[in-house]
């Protein structure tokens, strides 16, 4: 009873702050009512407990209707809400409530919100939410897509269907909240279809999967349109394909319902998702939720069911712990997202107990997403920068106090403790940028599916190591190269089923996509068991195109690398998929930009494996710190081959100008960095100096430096924006003493030096 008093007081306080136009305040009241309802159910059974439950529930519904603007007269609704709260207060004091005035009929006529008929307009106050909605919707759609593809192999897996269903359901809920009726309508259509599948009234065979995929695609387009509108005037145009898609979804669902009339009992109520979620598991839960208003099929929003379901289900003893207290103000929206996955899956586990134990990836990812927080990348970058500064500051402090440690063991101990924590913090902050490559791989499975249909080949894609994590930027940048490589494998690598059969191979081609860590870098491997690269053919093509001279002899690796040459394609004809000789060129350039490396191994008739090695992160490189006069520079270790002190007989001049250095029987140009950078060196005589042999692909050169200072991991920083890009320098890095040192750009340097 004491708890009840406290809760009603909190509720009354929230009521004072409430304003029909202010969503967070409404959400606050909604949350309070939810908590109160739960408290009521935990009370000793009795008339007052029932009254509390009832009041809390009607209040909640009322708030939902106000939020969704489904009430004709907001003021009357607010007044009614205030009355309910007053009654609750009386109950809490132990007095009998006075009878309630007859509830006003508040429901708006359903006709005013016809599905997808009108153009949608974003409200300015929603704009901050729209950004979140768009990114969330994209995540959900990606997850859904992955699940749909899983379905093709295992069409009966309820967990997977549930995953897709949840994605659409969440989108629908938030879309309703933001008044995006077109998206809501589409999500609802897809959801209805999936619900039938969930109840096993419909098998998701190939045409159904195609239809759902098409719906996902259309949804993506529409979500993008919303984002564009949010940046523009807020006006969302009518999507012309929407009506057709809705018809197709409905027709499909109807067809399956007619084919299984016996099982269609529950499907009649499927317009209201609440009824659906609740009808599945336990009778006690079904009763209260049936009382909830069954809204028009578009369901202007599903905030209501999303918010209400967990609480309804909480009545059933199995899921009592799934209820979440909602007291934060902004919780209406986030709650809908957070609670929602819990509800249907709770239904699922009771429905199909077997599926709970399979522990499918869908359920794992669903639970993972509940325990994460979305942070903008800008904030994350700021954090990482600040931690970087701290590491430098810590290094400076320990340098300055290095001598004092001997006389003051306490100081020494504390400093080393500080050092340890700093390192941990740095590692932690770096790991926050890491995301699993899974998302990109899932896109590839979609690609393989579509392309293999188009090319009329049978291909099985196996993905391993999707959980391998790499830097967010790398993940984004690796997408395009992967697409091109997969296309290439599919189009050129894998033969048609007939060809494969006649070659004695399994008619189903295998493409394996792997990711794993190896020696401080990430390896992404694309292997196919297709026809392999024909060295002779590539070489002939390259000779014909004039890329390779007629007498030039190339080793195996060099020949394979020719496929990355722009304009060289071994495909006899240009197809829809590839063959223009552009794709692999893109691969090479993107991987180079990521400071990665590509290795190819291939055998005619048995297949090709392409290995892409990428650094773990773009922000940090291993560098060789060199000194020229009083200046320090950093040479990326990936470009360093070796360093030597040249002897006089190794050096030779060409036309008395350009200098060459003979290293291991190769003549390499000698670049005097101090001339290029116009700084004062310690030595000008190469035999007094060290030369660093740097390489960029096939080009090598010797860079003259005074001294090698050591090898170090450095964080790459752009040079002040005021300077822009400078040829020969790729950026700056802050060294341990806090000073900035310049990172050399070896390809740029070679260009620069050869021009002089």
């Amino acid at each position: 009873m004491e708890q009840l008093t406290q809760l009603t007081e909190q509720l009354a306080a929230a009521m004072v702050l409430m304003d029909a136009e202010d969503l967070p305040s409404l959400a606050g009241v909604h949350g309070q009512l939810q908590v109160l309802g739960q408290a009521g159910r935990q009370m000793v059974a009795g008339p007052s407990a029932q009254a509390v439950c009832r009041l809390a529930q009607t209040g909640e519904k009322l708030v939902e209707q106000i939020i969704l603007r489904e009430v004709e007269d907001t003021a009357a609704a607010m007044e009614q809400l205030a009355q309910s709260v007053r009654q609750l207060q009386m109950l809490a004091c132990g007095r009998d409530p006075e009878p309630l005035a007859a509830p006003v009929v508040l429901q708006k006529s359903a006709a005013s919100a016809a599905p997808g008929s009108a153009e949608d307009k974003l409200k300015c106050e929603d704009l901050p939410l729209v950004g979140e909605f768009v990114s969330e919707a994209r995540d959900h759609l990606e997850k859904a897509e992955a699940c749909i593809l899983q379905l093709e192999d295992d069409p009966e897996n309820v967990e997977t269907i549930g995953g897709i269903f949840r994605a659409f359901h969440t989108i629908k809920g938030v879309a309703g909240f933001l008044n995006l009726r077109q998206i809501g309508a589409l999500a609802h259509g897809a959801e209805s279809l999936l619900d039938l599948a969930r109840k096993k009234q419909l098998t998701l065979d190939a045409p159904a999967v195609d239809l759902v995929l098409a719906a996902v695609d259309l949804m993506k387009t529409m979500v993008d349109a919303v984002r564009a509108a949010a940046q523009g005037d807020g006006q969302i145009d009518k999507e012309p394909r929407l009506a057709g898609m809705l018809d197709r979804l409905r027709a499909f669902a109807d067809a399956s319902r007619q084919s299984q009339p016996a099982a269609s009992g529950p499907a009649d109520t499927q317009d209201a998702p609440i009824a659906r979620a609740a009808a599945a598991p336990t009778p006690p839960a079904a009763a209260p939720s049936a009382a909830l208003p069954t809204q028009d099929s578009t369901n202007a929003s599903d905030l209501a069911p999303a918010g209400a379901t967990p609480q309804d289900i909480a009545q059933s003893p199995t899921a009592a712990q799934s209820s979440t207290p909602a007291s934060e103000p902004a919780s209406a929206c986030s709650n809908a997202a957070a609670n929602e996955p819990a509800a249907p899956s709770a239904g699922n586990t009771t429905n199909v107990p077997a599926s709970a134990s399979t522990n499918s990836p869908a359920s794992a990812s669903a639970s993972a997403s509940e325990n994460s927080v979305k942070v903008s990348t800008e904030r994350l970058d700021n954090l990482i920068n600040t931690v970087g500064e701290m590491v430098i500051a810590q290094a400076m402090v320990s340098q300055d106090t290095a001598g004092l440690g001997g006389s003051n063991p306490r100081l020494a101990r504390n400093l080393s403790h500080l050092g340890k924590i700093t390192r941990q913090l740095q590692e932690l902050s770096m790991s926050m940028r890491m995301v699993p490559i899974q998302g990109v791989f899932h896109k590839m499975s979609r690609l393989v599916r579509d392309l293999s249909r188009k090319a009329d080949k049978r291909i099985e894609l196996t993905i391993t190591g999707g959980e391998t994590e790499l830097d967010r930027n790398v993940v984004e940048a690796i997408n395009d190269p992967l697409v091109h490589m997969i296309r290439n494998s599919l189009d050129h690598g894998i033969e048609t089923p007939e060809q494969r059969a006649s070659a004695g191979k399994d008619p189903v081609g295998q493409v394996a996509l792997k990711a794993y860590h190896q020696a401080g870098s990430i390896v992404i491997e694309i292997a196919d068991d297709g026809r392999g690269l024909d060295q002779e053919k590539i070489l002939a093509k390259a000779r014909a195109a004039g890329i390779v001279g007629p007498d030039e002899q190339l080793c195996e690796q060099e020949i394979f690398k020719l496929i990355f040459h722009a304009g060289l394609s071994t495909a006899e004809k240009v197809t829809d998929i590839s063959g223009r000789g552009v794709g692999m060129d893109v691969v090479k350039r993107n991987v180079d930009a990521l400071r990665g490396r590509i290795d190819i191994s291939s055998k005619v008739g048995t297949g090709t494996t392409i290995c892409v090695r990428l650094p773990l992160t773009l922000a940090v490189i291993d560098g060789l710190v060199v000194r020229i006069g009083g200046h320090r520079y950093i040479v990326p270790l990936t470009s360093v081959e070796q360093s030597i002190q040249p002897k006089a007989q190794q050096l030779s001049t060409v036309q008395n100008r350009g200098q060459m250095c003979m290293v291991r029987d190769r003549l390499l140009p000698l670049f005097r960095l101090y001339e290029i950078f116009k700084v004062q060196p310690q030595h000008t005589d190469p035999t007094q100096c060290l030369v660093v042999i740097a390489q960029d692909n096939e080009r090598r050169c010797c860079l003259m430096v005074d001294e090698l200072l050591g090898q170090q991991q450095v964080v790459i920083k752009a040079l002040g924006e005021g300077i822009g890009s400078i040829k020969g320098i790729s950026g700056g890095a802050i060294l341990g003493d806090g000073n900035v040192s310049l990172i050399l750009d070896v390809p740029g340097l070679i260009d620069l030096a050869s021009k002089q």
Partner: protein
Amino acid sequence: MSDSATLDRVVKTTRGGKYLTFALGKEEYGLEILKVREIIGFMEITAVPRTPACVKGVINLRGQVISVVDLRSKFDMEEAARTEQTCIIVVEIAAGGRKLNTGIVVDHVSEVLNIAAENIEDAPEFGTSVCTDFILGMGKIGQSVKILLDIDRVLGNEDAAIN
């Protein structure tokens, strides 16, 4: 055209306000206080090759690498020896729609002055020999005159890199 003319007028009527004044040799300059991020003591600057002479290089401003411009060489004045008072003013300039921090090296920073709009005059015409585009106005404080700089224009048109 008419747009920039109105803009100019707006700028001129709102010229009054707080200015950070600093010295280059005997000349006194002023910077709009809102453009100033911070003032730091002179620190070691890493020279960047292949940039104009007035770009001294880059420094580490708490983890951010920013470029530093020597105003003396930008204004074609002779170089001055570094003193205790030499410092770097970090200003936020708008270039190409983005805001970026740049350091400017000055001889010494004087004070923050409140200069009323009526005490600010347009820069006099010097003929073609002196470009006055980057001068916001001339602030009169008693007998002395401060040259108020439009720092965006001073640094903005910098195409720093020579490739």
